[in-house]
Every structure is written in C-alpha cells, then in structure tokens.
C-alpha cells in the first residue's frame, strides 16, 4: 500500500527510470509516434511522413544499440543512456527492470498472497535478432510507402501501433503482458488489411478471416494460460514461474499427461494459426494477397515469426515431455506444410499469393526444427526465422514494384522486367535464388541446420516409438521428405524469375495500366513534358516504360544522351503541361529505382548476402540458449 504514499516527485522519478530503459524505449518510441501522428491533420503529409520515419528510425536505433551497447564513456555521461549495455547472448534475459520496479497490477488476497501482473520484460539471444529484424522491416515499410497520400495519417498511426504490439510480444516475460501485446498486434493488423487493401470487399473478407482465425487460436491460449495458472497454484504470471511450475511435480507435474497435452495443444493452436501450420494456414494467402505491400511485408516478415518464437519461449519450455509425445505429429504437420505448401505454390499465378504459399512452406522448416528438440534444429529454426524474414520481405517489396509497373500481379501477364525495370531485377534474382535455399545466401543455413538437426537427433527420440519406427529414424524420414519442398521451391522460384524477367516488355501502345499509374505519371504519358533534368527524365521514362530509356543499357553515368532521347521519345516539342511540383512531387530516382525503394532494397540484399557468407554471428546469438534448452530437454 506504500504505492499510494509515493509523492508526485517520486512517481516522476520512477517514470524517468522506466523511460530510460531500452526496452521501454523500444515500445515508447512507436507509441509516441502513433499518438503524435494521430494528433496531426490528415492533410499534413510532410509532418506525418517525418514523424513516421523519425520514430521507426529511432526504434531501429534503439534495437541496434541493444545489441552493440554504448561505449562506457557515453553511458556514464547521461543517465538516459546508462542502461545501454551490450547484449550478452548467453546470459538470462537482459534489460529488464529490477523486480521492485516492475509491479504493475497487484491483487492482494489473504495476508501474504498477492497475484500480480508485472511489467516483466527482457530480451535475450532468442528475441533480440527478431527485434532487430522487426524494427528494420518496420522502417523499411515506412520508407517504402512514403508517397502514400490517402489516409496516410491513419496508416502510419496504425503501423506504429502494430510495431508496439509486435515489439511487446518479443520482450514480454509475463503471461498477461504477453497476451495483451499478442492481441494488440491483431487489431491494427485487422484495420491495416481491411482498410488499405486494393479491393475493399475482398480485403475486408480477408481481414475478417484473419481476425477470426487468430482470435480463435487466442481463445485457446487464454484458456490454457488460465488453466496453467490455476492448476499450478502459484501467485505470479511470469512465464518463467509458470513454466517451472509446469514441470514441478509438486505444482503441476502430477497432472496426467492427457491434461497437460490438452494445455499444450491449447497453446499450440494459438501459435500454429500465426505460423501457420498445415490445416490452419488458409487465412494466410488471402490476407497476404489483399493487404497492401508494406503490410504483407510485416505480416510475412515478422508476424508469422511471433508464433514460432512463442513456441520456443513458452510451449517447449513448459511441456518438454509433452513435446516428445506430440513432436512426431507436429513434425509431420510441419513436413506436410513444407511439401504441400510448395506444391500449391507451383499452381499459383498471382505473385503475392505465390510468395504467401511459399512462406507457408518455409515456416514449415521452422516448426520442424523446433519439434526436433535439439541444438542444431532449434538454432536452425531461429536462423531461418530471420533469414526467411529478410528474403520474404524483399520478395513482397518487389511485388509492390511489379504491381506499380504492370498494374497487375498476374504472372501470366508480367514479362520483360529486365527491359522495363532493369534496376530492380538483381534484387528479384537474389531474393528468388535465396528463396530456393541456395548456398551462400540467407535461406540456406536455416534449412541446412534444420535438416541436420533432424538427421542427428536428440538421443531421447530413440526411445519414442512412431508406428514401426523409432523417433530418430522417423525424423530422418521426415528430413528426406522435406527436401522435396526445397526442390519444388527451385521449380517455382525459377519459373517466376523466367516469367517476370524474360520476354518482351509491355509496349506503350498495348499496355493497359496507364490509368493505374500514379497521377504524376499521367502528364508524361498523355501529353509529354519537358523533363527538368536527366534524372527526372529517367524517372518518367522508367515509369512510362519507354523502350529506349528503360533498356538495360541505360545508366546514370552517361544519362545525358539517353535523357535527350527519352525526352524525344516522350514527345518533347509538344506543348508542355506545367507540372505543379507542390501537388505531385516527383519521387527521387537512383539508378532507375525510386530512392526510397533503393534505400530499402539495398540493405535487404546486403543482409541476404552477408548472412549467407558468414552466419556465425547469428548462430552465436541463439545457440547458448538452445544448448541449455537441449540439456533441459534431455532430462525428460
């Protein structure tokens, strides 16, 4: 009750201590951005954009600083930076506040018993890479859509709110807090899909489907969580407490395996919908197809990973013995996801739908890795979460480019990107080849480690029977089957590449997409305008698909001649329509790409290559946690 006696000054001081915590800042910056943007006028585009970029960039900065830490001098100089130590991947979760400072809601009953929901947060080697990935992709998503004009305020406010939710899921170490953020992800996502999709009706249907599936899973999560809490008879919602109680024979361990399996399955349902695992995946293609580009990126790049993250953080921690019992079934579902998802991907003609199904196939590897319960496979799964996040984000960003350039995502109609938009094609090649699991690129190591882990298993599997086989052999069979999925990925990615890159570029006369182009391209297409400078000419030529200007030879270095030619092509000499620069700002162009898009794509491509060449750093992040979990699993 001493809380009520604290004066306003102490409260302020407490708040400042809380706000100086990096994890608080990780959530505070997007929240602040969300609130600030909500307060602006809808037409105040420059300010909206500024805040959106500023706060996502600050969040990314915070998350990077959490990994690297600040030098000691800087940390000492200002109390605000004092908590920025470097992350130590082999330590227990870091950056949390001391226990007496994170009391949040306390229900007192009896004299010594209180039930408290605490601000119990922290990060470790498992969540940190995902946090960095998330912040980076949110900044990318913000940068990507900077030319958005309609409902920009709502869009960015919701995006930042979504970032709060996703960041919260990765940092919270308390069941109720986790559940809060888990649901907080859902709401902005629902509005972002339903409100900003291209086709309203379909987008709303997809969003409702997404919402219902996820809510349906979350309900079971809540039921299981409450059951765990009630049956374990402890007075804390901290994940670690509940999970330790779950295996403690005095608290919950005495419960029959069937009951514990039911709780396991309840939690699993919530996570499996998010990942998604085989029979629960059907919301995903619809949601991805209907969502705007940036939201697809967030959805596939980060949101799917929250499910797998929660499986490692909660599920296998609390029920290792159930993990041995249910593991073969779960792994079978995962391999079905891999092979079945890949086979369905083959039949898709819509670019986004194809990428969406491929991500079902790839997330199957993550689940297979988690269910194998050993170091290699778990580390492979966490690595694949990050690698796949980067690759799939690149592919979805490029789907945005295709949609803008061609006005369609139908692979049967898209061709000649090598001629129409040559600057983007290396990125498409890189992402597609990485998506095939090609060695030296980010997608390879995760798959390799998962397969490896399935081949040489946790020795406990040898005593598990799966039909006529023992568990270890069964996992080997599954691993060989999963190779079919990788093989199929080569088929669909290559087909996509051939269709998109090769063939003739659509000519100006026959293309049907003029009306779908942004308004600023219209004058160029219809009347022709004097370009102000070569770069502008390039931009317009690139947009209008003029065969000369967009051919592969075009480059900024000797662009002057090409610009003249482009100007001629786009009908220079006709009456020039004065272009109102204030109304329709030309996007800046770098080497045929919009500048903001280049700023997003180039780091992603570099990340794909660097993670492929030298994966040790990322391995080192999660491996000590995986090793301790493995030794923990071995005891069951």
């Amino acid at each position, binding site marked *: 009750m001493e809380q009520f006696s604290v004066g306003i000054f102490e409260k302020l001081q407490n708040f400042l201590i809380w706000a100086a915590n990096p994890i608080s800042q990780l959530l505070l910056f997007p929240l602040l951005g969300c609130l600030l943007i909500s307060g602006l006028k809808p037409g105040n585009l420059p300010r909206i954009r500024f805040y959106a970029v500023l706060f996502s960039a600050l969040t990314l900065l915070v998350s990077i600083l959490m990994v690297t830490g600040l030098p000691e001098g800087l940390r000492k100089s200002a109390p605000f930076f004092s908590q920025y130590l470097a992350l130590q991947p082999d330590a227990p979760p870091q950056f949390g506040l001391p226990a007496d400072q994170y009391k949040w809601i306390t229900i007192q009953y009896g004299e010594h018993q209180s039930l408290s929901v605490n601000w119990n947060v922290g990060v470790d080697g498992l969540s940190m890479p995902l946090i960095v990935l998330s912040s980076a992709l949110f900044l990318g998503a913000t940068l990507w859509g900077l030319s958005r004009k309609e409902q920009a305020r709502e869009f960015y406010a919701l995006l930042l709110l979504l970032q709060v939710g996703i960041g919260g899921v990765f940092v919270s170490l308390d069941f109720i807090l986790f559940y809060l953020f888990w649901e907080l992800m859902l709401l902005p996502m629902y509005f972002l899909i339903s409100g900003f999709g291209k086709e309203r009706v379909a987008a709303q249907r997809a969003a409702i*489907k997404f919402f*219902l*599936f996820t809510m*349906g899973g979350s309900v079971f999560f809540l039921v299981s969580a409450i059951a765990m809490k009630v049956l374990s008879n402890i007075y804390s919602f901290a994940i670690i407490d509940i999970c330790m109680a779950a295996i403690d024979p005095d608290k919950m361990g005495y419960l029959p395996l069937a009951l514990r399996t039911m709780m396991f399955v309840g939690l699993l349902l919530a996570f499996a919908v998010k990942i998604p695992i085989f*029979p*629960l*995946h*059907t*919301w995903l293609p619809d949601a991805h197809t209907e969502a705007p580009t940036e939201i697809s990126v967030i959805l596939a790049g980060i949101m799917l990973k929250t499910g797998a993250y929660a499986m490692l953080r909660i599920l296998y921690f609390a029920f290792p013995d159930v993990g041995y019992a249910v593991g073969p079934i779960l792994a079978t579902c995962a391999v079905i996801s891999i092979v*079945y998802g890949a*086979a*369905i*991907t*083959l*039949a898709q003609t819509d670019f986004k739908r194809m990428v969406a199904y491929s991500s079902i196939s790839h997330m199957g590897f993550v689940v297979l890795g988690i269910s194998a319960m*050993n*170091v*290699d496979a778990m*580390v492979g799964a966490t690595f694949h979460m990050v690698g796949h996040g980067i690759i799939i984000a690149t592919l979805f960003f490029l789907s945005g480019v295709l949609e803008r350039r061609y006005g369609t995502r139908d692979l049967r109609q898209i061709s000649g990107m090598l001629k129409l938009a040559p600057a983007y094609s*290396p990125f498409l090649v890189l992402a597609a*080849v990485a998506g095939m699991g*090609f*060695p*030296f690129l980010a997608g390879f190591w995760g798959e*390799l*480690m998962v*397969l*490896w*882990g399935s*081949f*040489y*298993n*946790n020795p406990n599997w040898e005593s598990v029977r799966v039909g006529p086989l023992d568990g270890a052999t069964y996992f080997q069979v599954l*691993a*060989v089957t999963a*190779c079919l999925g*990788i*093989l*199929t990925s*080569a*088929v669909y990615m*290559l*087909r996509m590449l*051939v269709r998109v890159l*090769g063939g003739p570029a659509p000519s100006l006369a026959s293309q049907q997409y003029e009306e779908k182009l942004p308004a600023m391209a219209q004058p160029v297409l219809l009347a022709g305008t004097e370009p102000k400078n070569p770069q502008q000419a390039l931009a317009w030529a690139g947009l209008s698909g003029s065969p000369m200007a967009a051919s*592969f*030879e075009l*480059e900024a*270095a000797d662009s002057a001649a090409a610009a003249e030619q482009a100007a001629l092509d786009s009908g220079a000499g006709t009456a020039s329509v004065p272009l109102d620069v204030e109304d329709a700002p030309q996007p800046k162009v770098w080497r045929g790409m919009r500048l903001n898009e280049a700023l997003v794509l180039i780091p992603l491509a570099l990340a794909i290559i660097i993670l492929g060449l*030298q*994966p*040790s750093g990322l*391995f*080192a992040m999660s*491996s*000590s946690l*995986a*090793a301790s979990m*493995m*030794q923990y699993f071995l005891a069951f």
Partner: protein
Amino acid sequence: MENNIQLLLLCALPMAAALACYLLAWLAPATARRFNGPLGAAALAGSSLLGAMLWLPLAGANVAASFSRPWVKLPDTTTLLMSGGQELFLSIPFALRLDLPGLLFAITTAGIGLAVLLYALRERRDDERRGLFFAHLTLFSAAMLMLLCCDTLLLIYIAWELMGLCSYLLIAHRATPLARRSARLAFWTTRATDFALLIGIIILMANFNVTALSGLNIAGFYQRAVELGVSHAPLEAWFGTVGILLVIAAIGKSGQFPLCFWLSGAMVAPTPVSAMLHAATMVAAGPYLLYRMSGLFFSGNGALWGGSEAAMLTACLVGAVSLILCGVMALCADDAKRVLAYSTASQLGLAILAVGALSEGAAIWQLTAHAWAKAALFLGAGLLAASLPGHSTSLKALAGSARQPLLRLALVLAALSLAGLPLLPGGQAKDSILHALWTRALVQLDPATGTSLGASFPLAQAGWTVSAVLLLLSVPLTAAYLIRLVGILGWGKPVPAAAAVAVSGDAAVEAAEHSTGAAAPSPGLTQGWGLAKGLVIALSLFGTIALALLFGPGRLSTRLPLIERPWAWAGEGSPTAWLTAAASLVFILGGAYFAWRFNVARPDEGARLLRDGNLKRTVAYFRNGMLLRQFWEKLAGRGGWLLAQTWSLSDRRVVDALVAGALSKLGNGFSEGSRIFDKRVVDGARWAFCEFWWWLRRLHQRLLQTGYVQHYMFIILLGAVVLCFVVLRPLGDTFKSILGRR
C-alpha cells in the same frame, strides 16, 4: 599444415573476376561488354599459370597443397553431447586442398576455360548481352575450380549448386522458348539429384563429425572399430549409403543414363557453353567428387580394410550402362553437337565405372583426357558450324566442311584419343580401367594385402565381370561414333544447305532455333576466326600428344622421373596389360572400319541399311534419346503439375472449407444455439412465470373471493395460526438464544 596462398589465389582469382564482371554488368553495361571477356580470360590465365607453378613443387614432394582458415561456427548437438556440455560449436573451416590429380584437373579446367573464353570472344562479338554472358562463363569456371580445390564439404556443396545455377543461366542465354525449356530442365534435373549430395554431406557431418574431406579418414574409422572390438558392418553400411547418394548426385550432374536427356537438351546453348559444360566444368564434377570420396567405396589400411559392395556395384552398373546406352545414342544421333553430348555422357560413365572398379586414379586420367579432346571437338564443330549459313550443326549440313588438313588432323587426333587408341591419353585411361576390372574380377588380387578382393565381395565381383564385358563391347561402339563424326566432318560429301535442315524431331526445331538465334554472324568464316582455329588445333595437340608425354601414366613419360603419378596404371608393362591393349586395339579398328565404310566410304550402303524398317525405328528411338526426356517430363513435370493444381484447388475447396467452415459452423452453432436457448428457455421461463401469476390470479378469483364474510374471517384466522407457527416461533427461539447467550 602450411597455408598455400597460391592455392587460394588459384581458386579466388576467377571468382573475384566473376564478381567484378557482374558488378560491371549491373553498373556499366557498355564497359562490361567490352571488358568482361578479357577480364575473365585474364583471371583464368592467371589460374592456369598458378596451377602450373604449383605443379612442380607438389609433384616433387608428392604432397597436397592446402589452405585453411576458420569460417563458420555451427552449434552442434553431437559436439555438445560428446564434450559433456563443455563445447558447443563445431567449427567449419574454409579449407582448400588440392592433391596432384586434383591439380592436374584444375589446370585442365583453367586452361580449357581460358581457351573457351578466347573462342567466345570471337564468337560472341556481335552479341548484345555478351557482358553478362562472359560473367556467367567466368563464374562457371570459377565454381568448378572452387569445387576442385575445396576441402570443406559445405563449400563443395556450394560450388556444386553454383555450377547448376551457371549452367541454367548459360543454357538459357539464347532466350528462345526452347533454350529456356532446356535450361530449366537441366537445372531442375541436376537440382533434384543435388539433394542426394546434401543428404550425404549431412550424414557425414552429423554422424561422423567430418567437416572436411581431409578429415574423412575412413580407414581410421575401420581401425577404431577393430580396436573397440566391434564389427565394422554398420560403418560400411553408412559409408556405402553415402557412396550411393554420391553416385546418384553424379547421375544428375554428369548426365548419366536415366537422366542423360538434359545434356543433349543443353546443346541449344552457344558453342562455348557446350564446350565448357562438357569438357572442363559441370559434368566432370560428378566423377571428380567420387574420386575425392572414393574411400567410401573401398578403404584399406594394411591388413585392415572395408568397403561397400552395394556402392561399388551401383557405380559400376551406372557407369557401364551409361557407357553403352549413351554410346548407342551417340551413334544414332544426326547432329554433331548431339553426338558429342551423348559421347560425353558415355565417356563420363567410364570415369564413374573406374571409381566402381576401385581404380580412381584412372578416373581422373580419363576425365582429363576426355576434357581436352572434347573441348577440341566441340570448338571445332562450332567453328565449322559458324562457317555455314544458319549455323546448323546437323551432320548432313556439316558433311565435308573440315577441309583444311591441320583442322582435320586436330579433329581426328582428338577423336582417336577419345576412342581410346592405345598410347593416347584416352586409351591409357580406358585400358587401365579395363585391366583393373578384369583382373579384379577374374584374377582375384589385392596387391596391398594379398587377400582376394573378389572372394570377399562376390556381388561386386559380379558387377566387375558384367561391366568388363560391357566396357569391351563399348570400345568398338565408341570408335564407331567418333570415326563416323570426324569421317563425315572431314571427308563426307557436302549436301546443299537447304536439304541439310530437313532433319527430324527435336533436331529440326533446334536447327530452326539456331538459325533464328540471337547475334548470328554473317555466313562464311570471315576474318578473325584464325585465332579460334589455332585454338582448336592447339587444344587437340596439347590434349593428346603433349598430355600423354608430360603427364601420362604409360611408358612414354618415364623419362620424367620426378613426377609421382597417382593415376599410374597398376599392371603397367605386365603381359596382361599388353593383352588388354591389344584387344582394345583390335576392337577399335573393327568399330572404326564399319563406321568408315557405312558413313564415308559407301554412304549409300549405310543409307540402304537404315531404310530397313526395324532398324530405322530403333535408330529413331535412340536418336531421340530413348524418349527419356518425354518420360521424365510426363512423370515429374505433368505429374507434379497435376498434383499442384489438384492440391491448390483442394486447399481452397477442401481444407479452407473444412477449417474455416468448422470455425463458421462453430460460430453459427453458437449463435443459433443462443437464439434457441433465448427463445425456448429464457423466453419460456418468462412465459411460465407469467402463466403462473395468471393462474394464481384465477385461483384467487375462483377460490378466495367468494363474497361471504365468514369465509374471509376463516382465512384470516388460518393466516394468523400459520404466522404464529411459521414466523413467531422461530423468532422467539432466536430471541431466546440471544438472551440465553447473554
């Protein structure tokens, strides 16, 4: 072991050049068109030079050059458990290692790559996209060099995959539908079998903690098993499994029998690509890898040895069957490049057979001999085709086009070496393999231990016997198709160009593709082809005579005593060896005679033979590659497509319907249930309540309101009594108890 920087450079130079080429092609395409070719050629020249510089020190000391530095630290379960939780990471080094045979083939790869790039500089002079083309070619050679040099298993896999990707890019270079289809077919076929390699590598790494080839001391594993007093049968089974997986990978990569269709399809590509693909890179990777891991098949250490019969048998049969069947296809093919393509599959079958016959040194010698001769033949055929209108490579069109004596000599020499004429490199390799096979099968010897090999491996012995017979049969066959090829090219009767295009099946389409292909130089050999011609002649001379003199295992090169040759022939100089050579010479002469007679001397006789119905049908069947492509396309392509479509449909109609349907049914059921509950139960309760009051009221009216005063008084009395008993008495009791407590 000391780090050998030369080796690193040998491997890294072409890779760096390839990267530079790609960057140029992206950033400055015009510059790339001009400089990518020379850049790649310079890098490959540097690599060959480095290889040559490595040769003498290595050969003198008979050691392997190696380079190693830390690369990736993989967290690993086995390491964790073995060390009792102390050590977590398995460190995978970036390790290169090149032994003498490897170096021989590395020099071959770099040299042929250089020659091909020089040739391509002329041939692709007018190609718009030659910047990227040269980048791909350089990367292709670089990947092969990486495969040759790498010691780390994962790096080998990486190089292996990289080659697959390059082959795709290069085959698809013409960008016609046929080229794309062939390229995709090649990529998918090789990629499908690549998983065998990946799984094999994973088994080696996960089960044996072997990360690099030099750590794969199989004899040591057997030794340890003996020391521990356990049977090494499980070890043999594991190693045999990996061996078979490697053979499967080689079947895909080297276009062996059931998957040989992609090699002939790859002929759509420009000549330099074919030359590089067939001679120096890609296809040679399969046998080379088998050579490097030949310990998996058989490994001996003094009196202790072990081996997997199943793996030996698989290698022997795959090799021998490809040798024969692809040879027949080559004999029946009517397109010069196709003859060469099938001959590649056949000749590499021989190399795989050599590994199965446990004479892996001969496999390397066969690969080397084949690479030089095949490069000369491919570039020669391309050169001749370039002089024709439409660049047709059909045999009819090319008949008699090699009129210049030097060129003719070069082609004949290369063909004879491939056909296995004794004393030429190809002949040395083939005779050595044949000798090994039949001595292993019949004489039953193991020179190291004196124990009899054939007796301990009865299955493998059967395989050796069968493949010795098949190999002997293939000798006249090989001679026949090669003599037919060079005979027609050099001495055939020219036919008018218009008639030449009229060939059947895929070849016709292909010929049409060729004629419409991008960047056709003007008909006739114009200026600038002199260098290319010189290249062909030099390749042929070097690849036959100089190779045999400098590096050959036979008697010829004993004057160079400083060179220890691991590919030396075990039975060299023995009477059995002379017997083998004499037999193969007779067979070659026989095959060559028939080929010459029916194709060059009396072509009308050959044509008459072919007019016979049965033979014609058989020839057409083999000409179309035994319809293997159609078979696999039906099976995998059509089948996969159907599966994908069905599953895609069922995903929406069945799975989605079931799951989402169940969800919505649940929701509907809940709301409907609530409605019914509300109506029946909640509403019903209200209704019942009202009814009850209504009934009470009626009771009240009927029974109580009678109008008589005495009735009313009675009721009041009754009420008072009830009140006394029901209410007042308990109240009194309560008071009493309260008072009593006081």
